[in-house]
């Protein structure tokens, strides 16, 4: 069975600074996807960034980037130039599957509560 671990229940960062959220996972699968989702107080789940396991290059989306270490089963999220609107719960998630195949369910970590301070 797959597991996702987020070891930082809470973190805070000053506005405009950089913060890194950690995530590790355990799986015996060779094909999978990893995601970071953001859940602000509105409780809407918002996809932040996605990484395909078969890609060596780390994914980036504007101020958000990941450090994907497949051998170490690590998938950290870096937020640069933090903004007040980044304040939210951040969930790391795993999905078993391969590119172009059918998608199964997501397995979530427990989340990291990020507070961006002015």
């Amino acid at each position, binding site marked *: 069975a797959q597991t996702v671990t987020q070891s930082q229940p809470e973190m805070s960062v000053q506005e405009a600074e950089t913060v890194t959220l950690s995530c590790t996972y355990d799986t015996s699968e060779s094909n999978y*996807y990893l*995601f970071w989702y953001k859940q602000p107080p*509105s*409780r*809407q*789940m918002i*996809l932040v960034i*996605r990484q*395909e396991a078969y890609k060596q290059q780390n994914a980036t989306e504007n101020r958000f980037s990941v450090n994907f270490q497949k051998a170490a089963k690590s998938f950290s999220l870096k937020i640069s130039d933090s903004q007040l609107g980044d304040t939210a719960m951040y*969930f790391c998630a795993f999905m078993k599957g391969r*590119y*172009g195949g*059918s*998608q*199964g*369910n*997501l*397995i*979530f*970590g*427990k*989340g990291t509560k990020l507070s961006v301070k002015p």
Partner: protein
Amino acid sequence: SAVISQKPSRDICQRGTSLTIQCQVDSQVTMMFWYRQQPGQSLTLIATANQGSEATYESGFVIDKFPISRPNLTFSTLTVSNMSPEDSSIYLCSVARDTLINYGYTFGSGTRLTVV
């Protein structure tokens, strides 16, 4: 990407009653997922709903407590039956994006359920 309309957004219910949550998707999708998020916790999968077949439930969740309907490829309901205060949670539906470029999931806005 798919847009999901989920309702109700919140409800306060008496113990012993049932609540049905609806999710309407603006495009046809094969699988829909129902998650529960207990207060301050992560998301836990309740079941996977496929059109035309019975839902597949995860360990710890049973059909009698959480019956699901999936009458077509754009709609699903989750019922929370015979509610107790322990059922107070946020319930979310989700669909998989099927495009190769935009691989991922879209979520409804959630239903915050309080059982008193």
